[in-house]
């Protein structure tokens, strides 16, 4: 695996493999949460698994890109980070980067990620199948899809 510290500024728009947005990607470098909170006028932040997502909430209006790093696909903190940001009203780009694999795509999407920059490029057909896998959902997510329980009682 690529050492995430060797690339502290995160992915570039060129590395984004899947993007579910129409606006133009942010073209300047992402900064760490600490740097962002201390001084930066950057509009792009990179969240590592141990970072305090909630610290960003007062500043969401000036953020256009949050990149959430998954150094290992088994570390699921980024899913909660994504939902926390979306629930707080964040509407900018939410990008999953790092060890992003086929079988996590659909859950990431439901947690509010709308762009994906996997460290290793994914098979397009497998990824499409993964995004389309689930016909319905039991849980409310970051999207506006109706849950199974809501559909049952319409």
């Amino acid at each position, binding site marked *: 695996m690529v050492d995430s510290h060797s690339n502290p500024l995160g992915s570039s728009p060129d590395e984004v493999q899947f993007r579910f947005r129409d606006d133009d990607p942010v073209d300047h470098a992402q900064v760490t949460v600490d740097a962002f909170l201390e001084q930066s006028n950057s509009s792009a932040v990179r969240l590592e698994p141990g970072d305090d997502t909630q610290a960003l909430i007062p500043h969401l209006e000036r953020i256009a890109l949050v990149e959430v790093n998954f150094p290992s696909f088994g570390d699921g903190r980024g*899913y909660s980070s994504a939902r926390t940001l979306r629930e707080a009203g964040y509407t900018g780009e939410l990008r999953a980067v790092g060890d992003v694999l086929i079988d996590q795509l*659909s859950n990431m999407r439901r947690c509010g990620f709308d762009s994906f920059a996997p460290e290793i490029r994914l098979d397009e057909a497998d990824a499409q199948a993964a995004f389309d*896998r689930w016909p319905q959902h*039991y849980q*409310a997510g970051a999207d506006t899809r109706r849950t*199974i*329980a809501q559909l*049952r009682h319409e």
Partner: protein
Amino acid sequence: MYKYDSYDQQMVDARVDEFRDQVERRLAGKLTEDQFKPLRLMNGLYLQLHAYMLRVAVPYGTLSGAQMHILADIADKYDRGYGHFTTRQNIQYNWIKLEDAPDLMADLAAVEMHAIQTSGNCIRNISSDHFAGAAADELVDPRPYAELLRQWSSFHPEFMYLPRKFKIAVIASDTDRAAMRLHDIGIQIVEQNGELGAAFYVGGGMGRTPMIAPRIRDFVPLDQLVTYSEACLRVYNRHGRRDNKYKARIKILVHEMGAEEYTRQVEEEFAHLLDEGIEPPLAELERIKTYFEDPAFEAGAKSIDRSDPDFALWVERNTVRHKHDSYVSAVISLKPVGGIPGDATSAQMHLMADLAAQYSFDECRVMHTQNIVLPHVKIADLHTLWTALHEAGLGEPNLDQVGDIIACPGLDYCSLANARSIPISQQISERFAANGKGDTLGELKLKISGCINACGHHHAGHIGILGVDKKGVENYQLLLGGSEAEDASLAKITGPGFNEAGIVDAVETTADVYLREREDGERFLDTYRRIGMAPFKEALYG
């Protein structure tokens, strides 16, 4: 019993397709074993010492006769003609081929079953009281709440990669038959001012650091149950330790952070989530409840002819009071003397399925003690039922007796184990049957784990046994005084461990101290609590 609608069926079918695709990608080399492992675990597939083991979910332990028949067929078709009922009310098969697993899951899906989230660092099968819907002492049937949580926890997008596995139990009576406080979340449905709600206990567990869960909230209204659960999980997912898998369970977080601070964060998250509208409509809970309405009980005989002493003993030990006075719940022991605790052959499963259809409204339950319950048996049918069980070797009258041992698969199957559990349990049950003492001991819960992970619940045994590896030799530690019930306590170690023959003697010595010291009506656990460890140590090591 709960029945899938088209939505539930679509979800389980989609899961089968997804897993089939994952297996194909694994076999084609598109997924590494490291990438595939959590995926197969979330479908119940472990790689054990000799083969793949598949654990099938039995939500809150409830099964129809038709489902039990399929479990038997699976044992014949994909395994070696038997299965093993587990302490999480599930069943597992020991000799599965990876290539067969997708077809096996399709067979399960055809009878509204699955193996979803029976392993992995996610929310596991929800367990419950095995006498739910039948127990005379319950406030309500806890299973609708367990089913609501089953749906919420299945494929939860946020909680598939938690720091560690996560187990939830739901009960609805003051008597705890589900080891509720030894779960990551234990929920008790309670009544307050005429309203039903849920008391939440968080941070219990066994394993290498056993803890009894503290209660973090007395009352969560029923229309906030999912929201509160989500808040508990989110705080854990955010802060649970990921640096050390042995410290990753929520019990460690609650312990290190303190129950008060954990609760504060949960309440804060809960207040926020209430505004998010993630709770299913209350009508959904009402819909689920309709599946758990009482079957059509009929008034009938209320007394039992006990003239046959073998039958009378079984009735006394293996039947439990029912909320309807013409019925009992009957326990089918999977603990024959010298047998493997929790194992059942396909023929036995077929028989239990037939008996459930004939005598218990087509319903059976898996107990966490690895036995099977027929929850609603007419008193008038008991003798006929017992005769059929007795003839099939399933009539062992030993519920909660010393022979009713919980044992993990141990080193005979498990890749984590340090020592064998099954032969120890076999020798103990044989010893107490041969010397006749088994029948004099009354309630005595003996639980054996073959390693520190405590799948055999040894911390919660009145007598617990823990197998360890001592310089390459199996060694067994003896523990006394645990309980998984409403009087939950953790067993304490007696002293130095024993070898294989020594541990069987030590259990007998322990039982002898009880027989000598007990006062009227005392169970083993009561005597231990009154006299303490010293007399036992004296007899064992003195």
